[in-house]
């Protein structure tokens, strides 16, 4: 299994390199990183522009620029940012740390909810519960993530107003100053996570619950489940051990496929709750035509997607012992 995991990671490296190259090309060709400088009034002297051009490697040919960046990564050099005071490496890791917290918790909540609701809906097909959850599933599926997030934020604000105290934090990922020790820090961080996590989790949950219901129904209708019931196993045991375990296999695939869109959802959610996370980092990089910052974001995001896909692949083996990794 370890050999399999390593081989998978190894195969992903060329994909990673090619996709960073494509984004590098697109970004470099369509954007002008010096635009912030030339747009200044009064215009800076040609020397200043030339120095900045050199600092951003813009005096090198395109391919050489990419090569410099790529080899620099191995020395821990993520390239110069348009904003001269920013160190891209430390900045991007700090930002992603904040965002990963949100993504992991939201995925966990969404998965647990999706499995529970999916199983109940499938076991009691066409019941009131099934219809209600189907209705809300479709509703959340059709709802723009940011719209729901704004509504939830507003609900948090009104509850705070009526309570006359801060019950839900609605801005930022942390308070600027927390009075107290590690416990207070932790509760402050968790408090800031509640609303964004619900926003991100519910929009993700919608697709997954539809899927878990579908695959659960398929398994429940199969012959081996009927056999297990016929030989006298209790209903709950059959649902849990025979049906659910098999229904989870396709759900794992869908979860892995959706990681990219969750990342996109996190970008939008962060904007609503004004988190200084990876989403804000990305949007600033795009606005400032900061090609190297964009590349750093892409590198980490893509690695994240690849690693989570690998974990999903390894989970197959746990869920389905028939799959062997040679």
């Amino acid at each position, binding site marked *: 299994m370890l050999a399999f995991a390593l081989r998978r990671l190894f195969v992903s490296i060329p994909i990673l390199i090619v996709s960073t190259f*494509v984004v590098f090309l697109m970004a470099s060709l369509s954007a002008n990183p010096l635009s912030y400088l030339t747009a200044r009034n009064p215009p800076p002297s040609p020397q200043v522009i030339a120095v900045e051009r050199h600092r951003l490697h813009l005096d090198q040919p395109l391919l050489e620029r990419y090569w410099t960046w790529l080899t620099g990564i191995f020395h821990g050099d993520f390239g110069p940012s348009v904003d001269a005071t920013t160190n891209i490496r430390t900045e991007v890791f700090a930002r992603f740390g904040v965002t990963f917290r949100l993504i992991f918790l939201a995925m966990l909540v969404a998965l647990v909810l999706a499995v529970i609701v999916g199983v109940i809906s499938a076991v009691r097909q066409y019941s009131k519960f099934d219809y209600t959850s189907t209705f809300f599933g479709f509703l959340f599926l059709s709802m723009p993530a940011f719209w729901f997030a*704004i509504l939830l934020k507003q609900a948090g*604000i009104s509850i705070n107003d009526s309570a006359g105290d801060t019950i839900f934090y609605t801005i930022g990922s942390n308070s600027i100053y927390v009075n107290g020790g590690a416990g207070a820090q932790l509760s402050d961080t968790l408090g800031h996570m509640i609303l964004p996590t619900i926003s991100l989790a519910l929009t993700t949950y919608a697709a997954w619950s539809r899927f878990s219901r579908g695959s659960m129904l*398929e398994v429940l209708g199969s012959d081996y489940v009927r056999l297990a019931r016929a030989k006298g196993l209790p209903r709950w045991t059959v649902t849990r051990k025979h049906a659910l375990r098999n229904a989870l296999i396709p759900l794992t695939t869908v979860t892995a496929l959706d990681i990219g869109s969750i990342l996109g959802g996190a970008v939008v959610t962060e904007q*609503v709750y004004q988190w200084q996370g990876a989403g804000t980092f990305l949007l600033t990089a*795009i606005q400032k035509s900061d090609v190297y910052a964009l590349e750093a974001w892409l590198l980490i995001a893509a690695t994240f997607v690849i690693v989570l896909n690998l974990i999903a692949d390894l989970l197959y083996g746990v869920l389905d012992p028939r799959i062997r990794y040679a």
Partner: protein
Amino acid sequence: MPEKIDAEAATAQVVVPEPAKQKADHEFTVAERSQAQLVLRRFLQHKLAMASLVMLIIIILFAYVGGALWKYGVNDITPDNSQPPSLSHPFGTDALGHDAMAQVMRGTQVSLQISVLVAIFATLIGAIWGAVAGYYRGWVDSLLMRVADLILTLPLLAVAAMLAHNIGGTWWLIAIVIAGLYWAYVSRISRGVVLSLREKEFVEAARALGASDRRIIFRHLMPNALGSIIVYATVLVALSILLETALSFLGFGVTPPDTSLGLLVSNNQTAVDTRPWLFYFPGVFIILIVLTINFIGDGLRDAFDPQQTKVRA
């Protein structure tokens, strides 16, 4: 099941000893139905999908006909500012006095136009791309699908935001950017269908009759793959509305003076509490459009593939 009864009647008629004078294929009283007629019949019987279609048509008429007839334009400034919904301003007005209904109409137009354009471009390119890859196999397949895979690995929102920001904020440019990222999904689906179809006997027969590759792909393979592709095209409309609104919300989509539903939500996000009508109407329109399109897609899937209906997610 009217077909069953017809079939019985038909067998009864065949038993009649009188020899039929017409050609063999007119022997049965069952009307011959083409694939398209069968699909249409099944779709018309799908209640939820039909209701959604009617709803969507109403929304489209509201946006286009209503937009043309309504007394205020998007950028008209009226003397009433921050008015709640009333008879003269059914959706209220914003702080500058813009009529919110005119804005929602224009926003709906732009959002719909973008998503339909995305669906058309992405489906056309993706379907042909995948069909060619699946039909020729070998190195053509590898080459074409690696290009598609490459696009699938790019983070959609990030790349779309970057391109939309750098290329421009008009609605059709944004549609081209989104379509340039979504066609790869269609190509995978089209390739999968064509891969299984190309082994069928009718393709072999066409080839034996001397049909060219182009004729086989466009006359025999593509029409048979049409069902899956049309279903995905409707899903694509819903997906690209959500992507476009997200882009506009982040400030990388449609730019003023033009507007879109996402931009309207973005502009009015601070007004949820004070002037809720500005925030709720565009949002509800996004939900209604995406919801109805999802249901129509469901109906189409059932109509094209009736066997799948029983255990559908």
